[in-house]
C-alpha cells in the first residue's frame, strides 16, 4: 500500500521509532505519496478517497486547486482519523518538509488514538464513507440526481443541528429518567404535600382540601407533560427529524448519513486547538532534537514559523495550541500551579518560582488524554499567557465600519475564546415543541448569548427545515435585543415581536430578554 520512495521509507522508519521512544502511542500509520491534484481532491472530500456525490466537494476542490495554482496555499499534510491511520505526503515537497509532516502526523495520530473525545468515532470510517457513497448513488439512480441532490442540500443546511455531547452520554436519558421518576415517586409517600415530622400535626399541615388541590395540580402538570412532545427540549434535531418527520425511506437514510458524518467530524472541531497544538509541539521537538540535519534548520525555521504565524485578525489554533502545551509543560516542571502559586502575588518570587518537580511531560500527556478545547482553554489559559503572547479581542466598530482592537483584558479574551469554541461558535438551537399550538407545528428556540444570528441565513435555513418537517416551523430568537418569533409555513415567512418571553414550554433556554 505504502508507496514511499526508499529514501522516505527509511526516514519514516526512523521517525516512527523516535516518536515511539518519545512516548507517542499511535495507530499503525500508512503514508502515501500523492500529487498535488490528488491531495486537493482528497482534501475536498475531507480526507477520504470516496464520498457521496455532491457539488460542495467540487466547490472545495476548485477553491483548493485555484489557491494552489495561484501560489497562495499548499496543503502539506493530511491525516485521517481511522485505524490504521492514513496520512498523505505531497510529491515534490523537499525532504525536510516530508520529515516535518511525518513528525506532525505521528502527533495527530497519537491524539486520535488517545484523546477520549475521539473514543466514540468510527475507526473504520473509510469503509463507512464508501458505503454512504454507494447508498446515495443508488438513490440517485432510482430517484434522479436533482431530487437527491436537492434533499442533500437541505440536509447539509441543517447539518450543524446535532448535540455534540450526546455520543458521550452513556445511554439516552429517556428510559432511565422515567424509572428514576418512578422511584422518587414511590419513595415519597404523597407527592406535593408538605413534610410532616410529627404525625399528630398531619391534618393541620396538610388539610384535606389542600391535599385535593395539590393532587389536581399534579395531575394537570403531568397531563401537560404528557401532551408536550418532545417531553424535554431536544438538541439533536437531526435525530428527532429522522424519527419523527414525514420522510420517505430514502430521505430518512440520506439524513442519517449526513448526521453520521457530522458526528464523525465533530471531535475534530472540538479539539482543533489541542490537536494542532499537540502535533506542532511534537514536530518541533522531534525535528529540532532528533530528526533534522544541520543543513535543514533554516528551511525548517522558515516553514515552522510560517505555520505558526498569527495575524492580528485571525485566531491560529496551531499557535495558541503549541504555546499552551509548552506553557503547561513549563508550569508543571516548575511547580507553578496549585494554591501556593495562585496565592503568591510577589512578582519576583513568581518569576523565580521553580520547585523542580519535572512533572511537565506527564502533565501534557494527561492533558491530551482527557481535555477538549473548551476545558483546555478554561483550565490552562492564564493571564500571564495572554500577556506574553500579546493576545487581544477585536470587534466590529459600527461607526468606522472596521474591525478594531477592543481590549486586552484577560477575562474578555478568555470569554471570547470559549465562546468561539463552545458548539464551534455556532448558535445553540433546540426543539421545544413538535406540536406547537396543537397544530403539529415545530417550535425551535435559540439560546441567545448576546449575538444575533445572521438573518438571511436564518430565513433560508428555516425554509429548509420546513421542507423536512412539512408543517409550519417556528423559531424563537432575539434580534436587536428584542424577542422575535419567526414562522415559515411553506409559502409565507412571518415575524412577530414577542412582548414577553412567556412562550409555551419550560423554556429556560429561550432567553429572549438580554
Amino acid at each position: 500500500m505504502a508507496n514511499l520512495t526508499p529514501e522516505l521509507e527509511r526516514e519514516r522508519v526512523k521517525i516512527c521509532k523516535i516518536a515511539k521512544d518519545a512516548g507517542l502511542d499511535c495507530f499503525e500509520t500508512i503514508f502515501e505519496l500523492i500529487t498535488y491534484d490528488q491531495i486537493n481532491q482528497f482534501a475536498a472530500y475531507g480526507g477520504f478517497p470516496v464520498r457521496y456525490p455532491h457539488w460542495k466537494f467540487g466547490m472545495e476542490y476548485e477553491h483548493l486547486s485555484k489557491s494552489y495554482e495561484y501560489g497562495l496555499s499548499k496543503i502539506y499534510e493530511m491525516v485521517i482519523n481511522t485505524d490504521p491511520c492514513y496520512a498523505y505526503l505531497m510529491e515534490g515537497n523537499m525532504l525536510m518538509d516530508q520529515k516535518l509532516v511525518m513528525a506532525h502526523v505521528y502527533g495527530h495520530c497519537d491524539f486520535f488514538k488517545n484523546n477520549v473525545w475521539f473514543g466514540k468515532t468510527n475507526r473504520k470510517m473509510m469503509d463507512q464513507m464508501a458505503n454512504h457513497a454507494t447508498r446515495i448513488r443508488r438513490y440517485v439512480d432510482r430517484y434522479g440526481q436533482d431530487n437527491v441532490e436537492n434533499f442533500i442540500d437541505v440536509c447539509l443546511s441543517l447539518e450543524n443541528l446535532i448535540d455534540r455531547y450526546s455520543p458521550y452520554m452513556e445511554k439516552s436519558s429517556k428510559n432511565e429518567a422515567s424509572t428514576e421518576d418512578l422511584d422518587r415517586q414511590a419513595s415519597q409517600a404523597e407527592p406535593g404535600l408538605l413534610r410532616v415530622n410529627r404525625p399528630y400535626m398531619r391534618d393541620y399541615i396538610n388539610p384535606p382540601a389542600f391535599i385535593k388541590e395539590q393532587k389536581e395540580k399534579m395531575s394537570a402538570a403531568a397531563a401537560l407533560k404528557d401532551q408536550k412532545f418532545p417531553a424535554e427540549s431536544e438538541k439533536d434535531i437531526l435525530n428527532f427529524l429522522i424519527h419523527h418527520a414525514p420522510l420517505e425511506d430514502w430521505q430518512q437514510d440520506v439524513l442519517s448519513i449526513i448526521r453520521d458524518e457530522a458526528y464523525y467530524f465533530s471531535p475534530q472541531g472540538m479539539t482543533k486547538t489541542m490537536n494542532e497544538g499537540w502535533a506542532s509541539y511534537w514536530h518541533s521537538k522531534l525535528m529540532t532534537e532528533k530528526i533534522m540535519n544541520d543543513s535543514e534548520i533554516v528551511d525548517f525555521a522558515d516553514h515552522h514559523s510560517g505555520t505558526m504565524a498569527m495575524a492580528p485578525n485571525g485566531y491560529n489554533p496551531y499557535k495558541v495550541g503549541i504555546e499552551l502545551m509548552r506553557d503547561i509543560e513549563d508550569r508543571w516542571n516548575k511547580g507553578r500551579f496549585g494554591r501556593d502559586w495562585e496565592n503568591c502575588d510577589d512578582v519576583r518570587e513568581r518569576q523565580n518560582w521553580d520547585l523542580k518537580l519535572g512533572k511537565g511531560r506527564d502533565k501534557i500527556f494527561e492533558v491530551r488524554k482527557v481535555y477538549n478545547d473548551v476545558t483546555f482553554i478554561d483550565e490552562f489559559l492564564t493571564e500571564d499567557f495572554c500577556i506574553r503572547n500579546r493576545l487581544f479581542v477585536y470587534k466590529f466598530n459600527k461607526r468606522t465600519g472596521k474591525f478594531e482592537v477592543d481590549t486586552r483584558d484577560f477575562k474578555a479574551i478568555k470569554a471570547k475564546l470559549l465562546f468561539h469554541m463552545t458548539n464551534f461558535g455556532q448558535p445553540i438551537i433546540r426543539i421545544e415543541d413538535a406540536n406547537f399550538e396543537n397544530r403539529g407545528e415545530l417550535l425551535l428556540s435559540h439560546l441567545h448569548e448576546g449575538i444575533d444570528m445572521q438573518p438571511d441565513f436564518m430565513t433560508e435555513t428555516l425554509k429548509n427545515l420546513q421542507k423536512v418537517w412539512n408543517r409550519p416551523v417556528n423559531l424563537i430568537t432575539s434580534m436587536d435585543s428584542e424577542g422575535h418569533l419567526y414562522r415559515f409555513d411553506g409559502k409565507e415567512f412571518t415575524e412577530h415581536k414577542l412582548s414577553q418571553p412567556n412562550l409555551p414550554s419550560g423554556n429556560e433556554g429561550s432567553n429572549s430578554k438580554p
Partner: protein
Amino acid sequence: MSIKEDHSRFRDIVKGKVKENFRKYVSQGEMIGKRENDFVKIPLPSIDIPNFRYGPKQQGGIGQGDAQQGDNVGEPGDGQGQAGNNPGEHLLEVELSMDELAEILGEKLELPRIQPKGNKNIETVKTKYTGMAPVGPEGLRHFRSSYKKALKRYVTTGSYDPDNPVIIPIRRDFQYRSFKKITKPQTRAVVIYMMDVSGSMGDEQKEIVRLESFWINSWLKRHYKGLETRFIIHDAAAKEVDEDTFFRTSESGGTLISSAYKLCQQIIEADYPVNEWNIYPFHFSDGDNWSGEDTRLCTRMLSEFFLPHTNMFCYGQVESKYGSGQFLKDLQKEFPNDERIVLSQIENRDKILDSIKDFLGKGR
C-alpha cells in the same frame, strides 16, 4: 475520478445552467481589493449552504500583536476564526498583474479578442536606424565602423605600423548610420467615459460604474497599447475631469445627457481624428433625462456623429431608486437592431459581469 463530476456539477450551478434558484447563493467574491499595489482579490465563486450561524459583524474574535486599542485589524477572513469541520476556507488574495487579471476576466466571461479597427490604409511611419551608409550628415557619423574601415585600409595597403598606430581616415572611410522607414497599421484607441452624477446617482450606483469601467479598461488595455482614457461627468452641464474626480464627485441637480454628448463630440473632434483612432464612448446613467426634447437631441447626435465614427457606442443604465430608466427604452426604440450601439442594464453589483459581457462580448 468522481471529483471531476462534482466539480463540473458545481461549475454548472455557478453558471446558472442547472438549479436556477441557486443563483442567489452564488457570491462572486470581491472583484477588486487593494488596487494601488496591484493586489487583487480573485473572484472565486462559492455557494453558501445556509445554516443557523452568527452574524460576522457582531462576533469579533481573538488576535495577536502589539496593536493599540482602537487600531484597525483588517477584515477577518482567513477562515481560522471558527473552528470547523472543513479543511479550511480561503479568501483568495493574490498579487497579479493587470494583464493576468484581464486574461482571467476574458476567460471567465468568454470574451472574444478585439480586432483593432480595420483602417489598414491608415498607417504610421516610423523611422528605425538599421544599417550603415557611405554618405550622411556629420551628426550621424559612426566612429567605430569608420575607424574599422580605415584600419582595414591601412592593413591591406601595408601601411599599418604597430609601433606607431596612427590612423588617418580619408573621405571614403566614413560610415554613417542610416534609417529605414517602417510602416505600421494604426491601432490607437481612446475610451471616453461619461457618467451621470445627478442627484439620483447614489454611492452604490457610482461604485458599480467604477467597478465596471475598471474591468473594461483592463480588457481594452490588453488589446491596445497606450490606451487613452478621458472622463466626463455631467448633470445639467458637462465637464471633463480626471479619473479620481470622476469616481468621487457627487453633484446634484438635473440631467441633460446631451451636454455630455456635446462635450464628448468636441473632445473627439479636437484630439482624436476619427479615421485614426478606435473610439469607445461609454455612458453610464440611471436613465433619467430632463426632457424628451433633450433625448431627441441625444439620439440625433448618436445617429449623426457617434454611430458612424466610433467603434461602438456603449450605454449602461444603472438601476437606481429614483431614476425612471426611460432613456434606455428611448434608445431601444430609436435604434432597434443597430449593431453599433450596445445597451446594457445593470440592476445590481452581481450583474456587472453580465454587463461587461454585453459591452465587450462582441469583440469590436
